[in-house]
């Protein structure tokens, strides 16, 4: 749990939020008194019911919104994968990935190299010249991930990235994200509403309820995780129990 967390001595922590509040004009609350520290290389899943503040937390970490109160420290290069890909329909796959790659200063050759590297990392090189509307939902989401990777992010944020995909594609994407995390050692923060998805991917799960952090748990299962395994089921039941406590 976060109680007793020392926020002033964090050599290995890549993101921290101290006493962060967010209030909106139209609704009363977005976030209440959030204290959170995320270690470099963690795969953190943020779960919670709809409207509990998960997306507000992600937007603040991404720099899309400023907190009303509190301190947020985050690295310069934070990248985000959107729920529906958020691709530009008039650009080809390669041009969409370049759109992300250009966010870091560099020569055209650097940008091209980062783009090609991201495309090969996600195994979508063969789709380079296609337009987004010619692709399936899973392929579009892969482009969104490649675009996010093309700017060499220190932190990769995923906003319910698999919620619009069918179960088979979701399973493939889980495997790919898991491999990507192990290979690159990137820090990943994923918002999801599925406990199984959080247990399948993350090594740390944060439960949010009523705009606050209600629980913070480690998942020690080794990767790749077999979703039909007994220990996986145990972890899911443990998180499930915590998730529905006091509800």
């Amino acid at each position, binding site marked *: 749990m976060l109680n007793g967390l020392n926020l002033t001595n964090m050599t290995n922590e890549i993101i921290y939020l101290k006493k962060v509040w967010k209030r909106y004009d139209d609704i009363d609350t977005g976030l209440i008194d959030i204290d959170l520290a995320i270690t470099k290389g963690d795969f953190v899943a943020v779960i919670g019911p709809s409207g509990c503040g998960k997306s507000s937390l992600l*937007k603040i970490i*991404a*720099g*899309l919104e400023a907190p009303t109160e509190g301190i947020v420290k985050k690295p310069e290069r*934070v*990248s*985000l994968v*959107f*729920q*529906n890909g*958020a691709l*530009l*329909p*008039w650009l080809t796959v390669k041009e969409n990935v370049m*759109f*992300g790659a*250009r*966010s870091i200063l560099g020569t055209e050759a650097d940008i091209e190299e980062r783009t090609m590297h991201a495309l090969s990392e996600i195994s979508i090189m063969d789709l380079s010249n296609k*337009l987004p*509307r*010619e692709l399936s939902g899973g392929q579009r989401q892969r482009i969104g991930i490649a*675009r996010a990777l093309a*700017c060499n992010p220190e932190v990769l944020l995923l906003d319910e990235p698999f919620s619009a995909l069918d179960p088979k594609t979701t399973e493939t994407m889980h495997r790919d994200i898991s491999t990507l995390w192990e290979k690159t050692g990137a820090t990943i923060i994923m918002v999801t509403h599925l406990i199984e998805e959080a247990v399948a991917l993350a090594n740390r799960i944060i439960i949010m309820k009523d705009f606050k952090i209600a629980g913070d748990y480690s998942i020690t299962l080794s990767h790749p995780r077999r979703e039909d395994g007994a220990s996986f089921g145990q972890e899911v039941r443990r998180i499930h129990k915590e998730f529905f406590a006091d509800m």
Partner: protein
Amino acid sequence: MSLSFASILIRMKLPQGGMRHYTHREGQSYPITLSQRLYTTFLAPFFIIALLIILSNSISLFPSSIAGVGDQGIFNYLGAAILATFMRMFVAYVLAVIVAFPLALLVVRVSWAERLLLPIFDIAQSIPVLAFFPMVIIAFTNRGLWDEAAIVVIFLAMIWNIVFNLVSGFKSVPRDIEWAAIVFKLSSWRFFTEVLLPASVPSFVIGSLLAWAQGWNIIIVAEALHLYLPKSNPHDLFGIGSILVSASATGNGALFISAIITMILTIAIIDFLVWQKLLHYAERFKFD
């Protein structure tokens, strides 16, 4: 067994494989509506036959010359007129685009401007163009600026379609895309050129198409200036609009019909060569 006329019509047009579709967008299609069936079944053939009858009559009546046309021949005369009209409309359109872009951008990007300008635009676009004519007469025709007067009238007819469609196009950018632009640190200039401008293409094409339609509507007023000027200073601009008015006033039916056909053919050719292609091209800029 009694079948309604409409159902017979629908069955008649449906192939065995199911509903016919037409498409601008590759891979995505839209069902053909009943009104489109009615149009393609009855109105379009009727229109084409009527046009052919009129065309054949006017050609047989005036094989090489026409009253009031002079020695140059009917085709050269009407060709020069339609070209003059087209150039006037083109200049007005370019001016309308130049003015519309900053106005639409102001409305979309500056919150106070939207609150202030949109109601003003709304009122301005509802005022008929003819209401501006006295001002145009005072400002331009009294100084001998005949072409400028016509261009201003066409400009006023065109601009609001472009402005409102551009505003709608700029606003069509989804929130996710705006956020992606922030995450990927796009400058204002890059956001304008790489996101806003492409996103506005479909609405801009629709706005331009409607603007040209308005322009063709108003061309008669814009070119037939003698109707609005003192008798001591009668003046018309050479163009298809003024030919239509004078032919009608002098009872020159053949010239009138020839001018109408020239205008219809020009509009149809522009539609086929420009607007249909642009509408097809614009599909790729639409967000899902």
